[in-house]
């Protein structure tokens, strides 16, 4: 419990309404005894410095969608909320770069950029709620990663507040930069365990002139046939920005098609998009069905897609226990991951929605059911991933269950390097303690 003196000290550099006592407990943990909401980078630095030199611990939160992602401490002394640290710092349309404060919501950013016909080429879940800082800190990506890459490809500069209050800039404002170590990479996906990312500079892309979604469903569920088709697509000249396979339950939920379905997006000039739709129609296997959706319908599909997994927002408690896992494998192994996780539905009496990128090797499995069933199924998903030569991490699970289901899996052989980095940057384990792999 944070001491009263500490709170009085905090009150000397924060206004009354920036510090809130937090009596409530969250289903997802990763909370704090007091919630502090800095409005400037100086305030973030002052808060960290105070905590770090007084042995206090800090959890960091953006929009709160990832409260169920890692972490074995229900409440630290302080919950640092970035909700009041928002806004665009600099946007130079001609350079196609954007610098933004970490607490800015993703959807707000995309809406602003759309006025300039530009966008950030990431497609994370829960865009209305998730903040750009949280997306970068957790290295979130979606199906369109195939065409546009992930956070490590889009971020060109960061300002990170170290636990001792130092502001460390990495990268810069230009799209090509090899001056010094590529420190951006260290903070992307570090789950806030090295510093508080305060500002992010991203390279932007133009909004494509034409977009379409082609859904190809396989009613017979013949996996070998799906694989053969995917290989043919990947080996052809067409350039889908997503090649995401949905399991029947998810496909049913999003598009009303109860069968394995491939979601292929095309984004380019119109002549190219039409050509590619035509090309896919002509290579369609006999047992597959094709549905081409124009932009409006495609938008609706994606709108549902980005909201189908559980999140850590406080709200109505779900009736069932929910878990969500991210699985990484060699690209085409995503097929076998999806196929094998289907069997868990009967084995553990759970509902499973899953999708996997056949061009990038990342799959996502959502499990819903009774608490112990969900925990057992989640553990089984890891075994499936490891059998396929990959890994599984638990992206969302209630706090109590995270004590039973290992979130990050086994430590890698080079764990000493990860630990060495943590110890150099955050020796007192002030920030997001125990949130990351191996208790980092």
């Amino acid at each position, binding site marked *: 419990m944070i001491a009263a003196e500490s709170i009085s000290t905090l009150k000397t550099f924060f206004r009354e309404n920036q510090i809130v006592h937090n009596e409530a407990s969250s289903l997802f943990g990763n909370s704090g005894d007091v919630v502090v909401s800095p409005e400037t980078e100086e305030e973030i630095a002052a808060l960290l410095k105070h905590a770090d030199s007084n042995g206090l611990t800090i959890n960091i939160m953006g929009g709160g969608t990832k409260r169920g992602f890692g972490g074995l401490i229900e409440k630290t002394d302080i919950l640092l909320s970035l909700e009041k640290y928002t806004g665009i710092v600099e946007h130079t349309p001609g350079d196609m770069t954007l610098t933004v404060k970490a607490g800015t919501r993703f959807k707000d950013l995309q809406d602003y950029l759309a006025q300039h016909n530009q966008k950030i080429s990431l497609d994370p879940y829960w865009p209305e709620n998730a903040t750009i800082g949280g997306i970068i800190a957790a290295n979130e990506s979606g199906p369109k990663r195939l065409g546009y890459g992930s956070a490590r490809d889009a971020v060109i500069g960061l300002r990170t507040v170290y636990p001792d209050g130092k502001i460390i800039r990495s990268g*810069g404002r230009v799209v090509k930069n090899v001056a010094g170590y590529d420190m951006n990479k260290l903070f992307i*996906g570090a789950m806030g365990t090295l510093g508080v990312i305060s500002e992010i500079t991203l390279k932007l892309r*133009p909004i494509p002139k034409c977009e379409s979604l082609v859904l190809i469903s396989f009613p017979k569920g013949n996996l070998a046939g799906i694989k053969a088709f995917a290989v043919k697509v990947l080996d052809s000249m067409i350039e889908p920005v997503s090649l995401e396979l949905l399991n029947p339950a998810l496909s049913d939920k999003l598009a009303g098609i109860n069968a394995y379905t491939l979601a292929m997006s095309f984004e380019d000039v119109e002549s190219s998009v039409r050509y590619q739709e035509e090309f896919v129609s002509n290579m369609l296997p006999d047992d597959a069905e094709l549905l081409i959706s124009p932009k409006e319908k495609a938008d609706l599909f994606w709108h549902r897609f980005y909201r189908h997994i559980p999140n850590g927002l406080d709200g109505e408690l779900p009736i069932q226990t929910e878990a969500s896992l991210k699985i990484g494998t060699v*690209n085409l192994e995503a097929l076998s991951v999806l196929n094998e996780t289907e069997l868990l539905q009967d084995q553990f009496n759970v509902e499973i929605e899953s999708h996997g990128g056949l061009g990038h090797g990342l799959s996502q499995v959502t499990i819903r059911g009774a608490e112990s069933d969900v925990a057992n199924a989640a553990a089984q998903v890891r075994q499936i991933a490891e059998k396929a030569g990959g890994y599984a991490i638990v992206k969302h699970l209630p706090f109590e269950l995270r004590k039973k289901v290992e979130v*990050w899996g086994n430590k890698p052989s080079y764990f000493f*390097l990860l630990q060495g980095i943590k110890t150099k940057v955050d020796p007192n384990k002030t920030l997001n303690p125990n949130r990351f792999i191996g208790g980092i």
Partner: protein
Amino acid sequence: MKAKDRVKSKDKHILNLADIVGGARSILYLKEDLVAYDCDGFTIHKHLPKAVVFPKNTQEVAEIIKYCSENNLPFLARGAGTGLSGGAIPLNGEIIISMVRMKKLISVDLENRRAVVEPGFVNLKLTNSISDKGYYYAPDPSSQYCCTIGGNVAENAGGAHCLKYGVTTNHILGLEVVMPNGDIVEIGKDGIPDAPGYDLLGLITGSEGTLGIVTKITVRVLKNPEGKQTVLAYFDRVEDGSQAVSDIISAGIVPAALEMMDKTAIEGVEAAAFPVGHPKDIEAVLLIEVDGIAAGIQEQIDQILEVCRKRNVREVRAAGSEEERARWWANRKTGFGAMGAISPDYLVQDGVIPRSRLPEVLSRINQISSESGLRIANIFHAGDGNLHPLVLFDARKPGESEKALEAGSQCLKVCADVGGTITGEHGVGIEKREEMRFVFTEEEIAAQTDIREVFNPHNLLNAGKLFPSPGRCAEVKKEMKAQAIS
């Protein structure tokens, strides 16, 4: 043992290292053999290594490193030695671990779009090995016909086509690395993305060989684009050319490459081996390449032509044939060397600027040129803002090398001042250690050397690179100038 396999040295370290790599044919230690290794593509600073060893596999690399580490011998890795910033120069009389014998293409898996190579494998050979199946490896530094992928990883090499496809780091999926204590670690197993933990893959790529020595690399390979077209545009005013660049990007086109050369650079390329007849009185030539689905190319080319016309272009046209396209690119890609046709010596710089600041930066570089009395040609990856000022000088004239170094450094200062950086693809190496202060504070440099300490605690691996050393910096600068003059 045959006579030629015998090592003629009394130095126990030479003898022991020779044992590790299998005898005299895998080690160089005589002064006359070592001279070729006293510098890389950055020739202003030279130092002899203690020895050069040629391991054949990861195990030998690990044993060499373990030996060096236990005996406190400084060491570094070297690929083809084409680096332009001095990253492979044995400043401290290092043992050079040459990777040229580790040059196998280990495996290709086109279905999963990946290939595994040893570090000594030459960049262009990868594309050549898979092009018959319609695939290629995207990063294309100008030296790609001879530079190694291991070196590309160390330097995070770029190239003309990284505007659309990214630089080396965007194409590296996995690495096997020998740590400075001899441990072998595998990062990004099988090329699987987003391995849990900090992104060491991204950190090691571009670390200029100071965090570990890479012994195996999993890279992403891409499908060849179906279509490709290149446009050439001549501008009377650099401002118009520069504005056209911004307009093309703002129009929502993502060109595969967007290159610019200024008047002095044009004079150079036209006097060299691959002239294409660019007019001598224009201020800027643009080379714009679009690739992708063939059906969509013409739409984009038409738009580019229109944009250029709106910006007072003197002449603009798309290549009439593949042969013409190839000639334009040969003229551009040999641009650095072409400066030899109009100047006895030249110094390449590698700044990056927000591309919208180009006219202002060029005018300040012109000012540096007139103040120093040296001509400066500009070759520019305009799409991504990577500017290569080429300072032309004559090393035989007393004081001119020194002036060229100073002018190069001033150009980088200009880039840093407009919000850019000091190197886009050549690396810091020895050359730009001091200029690191143009872009980073002492605290930020310390944050980076803190990370180095985790990997390379005794700093035996490639010491003295990348970062300014507070006490020695003034002295080194003086030494560099002295060498440049001699």
